[in-house]
């Protein structure tokens, strides 16, 4: 049986981790090519954070600390891959550059992601939304998806890209717009 103190630590950790999980995941996802790889890296991050949780001095520092761990784990993952030549990844140099750059803006990216989920997806046409849903819902078989939406494979990809661009523009607008209602 864990002691009440250990339980308290578990509880604190879980609270902090779940709060920042989605930001950390998004950060990792920007740097790692495959979704599945990003999930693997996330597992490692979760374990490191938990193992070293007693080193965290104040809860307020969790996010900052988690990003440092995340960055380290992404780069470790990247280095491990260097041994596997077949993998399709950006160079370590580029990943490091991007890790550094994107780290500083994670809060802005969080806002934009929430804007996508909260506002922008709802503004799409039904067909655009269905296409995204089909694309991101299942292990997609793009040729048949493209056919279902009456497009060539290339045309389908371009269409998805344009929808994502629309979402991205909308997200930046909403995230930077002070008139969006805030409710406390």
């Amino acid at each position, binding site marked *: 049986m864990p002691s009440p103190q250990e339980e308290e630590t578990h*509880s604190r950790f879980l609270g902090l981790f779940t709060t920042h*999980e989605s930001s950390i995941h998004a950060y990792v996802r920007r740097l790692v090519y495959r979704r599945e790889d990003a999930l693997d890296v996330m*597992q490692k991050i979760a374990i490191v954070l938990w193992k070293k949780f007693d080193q965290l001095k104040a809860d307020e520092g969790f996010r900052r600390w988690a990003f440092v761990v995340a960055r380290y784990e992404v780069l470790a993952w990247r280095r491990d891959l260097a041994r596997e030549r077949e993998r399709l990844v950006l160079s370590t*140099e580029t990943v490091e550059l991007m890790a550094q750059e994107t780290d500083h803006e994670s809060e802005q990216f*969080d806002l934009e992601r929430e804007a996508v989920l909260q506002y922008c997806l709802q503004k799409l046409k039904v067909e655009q939304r269905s296409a995204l849903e089909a694309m*991101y819902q*299942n292990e997609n078989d793009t040729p048949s998806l493209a056919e279902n939406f009456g497009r060539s494979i290339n045309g389908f*990809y371009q269409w998805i*890209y344009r929808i994502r661009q629309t979402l991205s523009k909308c997200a930046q607008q909403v995230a930077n717009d002070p008139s969006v209602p805030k409710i406390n």
Partner: protein
Amino acid sequence: MKRENELINRYLNQEITKEEVTELDELLKNKPELRREFYQQANVVTALEEEFSSNLPNENITITQPLLFNYKLMALAACLVLGIGALSFLFYDSKSQESRDIATLVSNENAAWESSLPTTPGSTLKPGIMSLKSGVATIRFLSGAEVTLEAPSKIELETPMRGKLHAGTAVVNVPETAHGFILSTPDGYAVDHGTAFAVSVNRNGKESDFEVLDGEISLHSPGGESLFLKQNESATLGVVGIFKNNSLNSKEPLPTLPLHHKNIRIQTQGKNLSIIRNDAFEYLDRDYLMVKLDTGGKPYERRSLLNFLIGEVDWKKVKNVKLRLNLVPCGLGHRVYLPKISRFKIFALAGFADIQWGENLKWDDSPTLQSATPVGNFEIPRSQERGSIVIETPELLSFLKENNQSEYTFIITRETTEIQGSGLVHAFASDYHPEASGPSLEVFF
């Protein structure tokens, strides 16, 4: 599309070739504006993955156990002991068949649910478990098969042609399109050949009774036994196999539940309220018990207090206690700004509480958490809007018994904060709520 945008697109779609990666790498390294475009696109992709492919486990029913049973932590502990590796399915279920819609919730008749699936009528439902706590509800599978549930019951939606009744009673109507629909129970399964039939899972799942109302079904036991049942025929599936009941038309009266006269249910009788850290009482509402933890200086942190005057109770004889809350939407804040799971904690104080319940209570005048004892935790997925939350922990029971008082006060807090400001304010029905009932404490002897 410009070549460089096409490369980003192909990369994010996981369709890129080795040569193209090298080309993209070079471009990204040298072009800050292209990196910006890349981040924006990747960020949108992450949001879309989050929206459309659920990482949450199938069943996410409100947890009423103390923290040490928390599945993630159990897994973490196990992984730390056993070595890393098994964590993936717990933290990050890879996307699977879970994401398909397989049924629709047709109607709720005074229904209260506990489920991570949507519980408003008209919602489409993915595979998962739904627990009906009160009332009657009808679910239509995509095949056309319709299952009407009577509370309390628990059903697992598996595929458009298959469901499992874990507990409770249901009537299944199967149109021609869904011939072959399978309804399983813990004791076996029934294949429907175009009929209506009633099924009831009894004795903690050890027995299932089937009765054909119209048409015919076949019953199958795990041991390989099977039996055809026609209209008005009934049979029981149990550990020892299938038994056909002989009383065809002279129906036996339905078994009645044993009455628990001695058990008591106590309500707060108006003695419940919310407090807010900045004492801005206009952000509170008498109908709701609000709970929130915000970021920064936490000015909008809210807690709820409830008090039960129990009267004379011989606590020595009490075997179990349940604290019941009804989750209701209060319309404040956005659920997407919350983590996927919010965690709550309940604290208890024994004896008389010097609080003017009918009035606004200032934060600094309310009991502190340090003066109270934690007695339980629960979790609510951000997707859940309504439902009955039951706290039934050994800590709660032993606190009430050991203090041996006739009055207890509870404080409900949220442990998890929000991803950004304007996150959802959780609310439970107070005694004044127009629809849902207020908190109650059930004491079992």
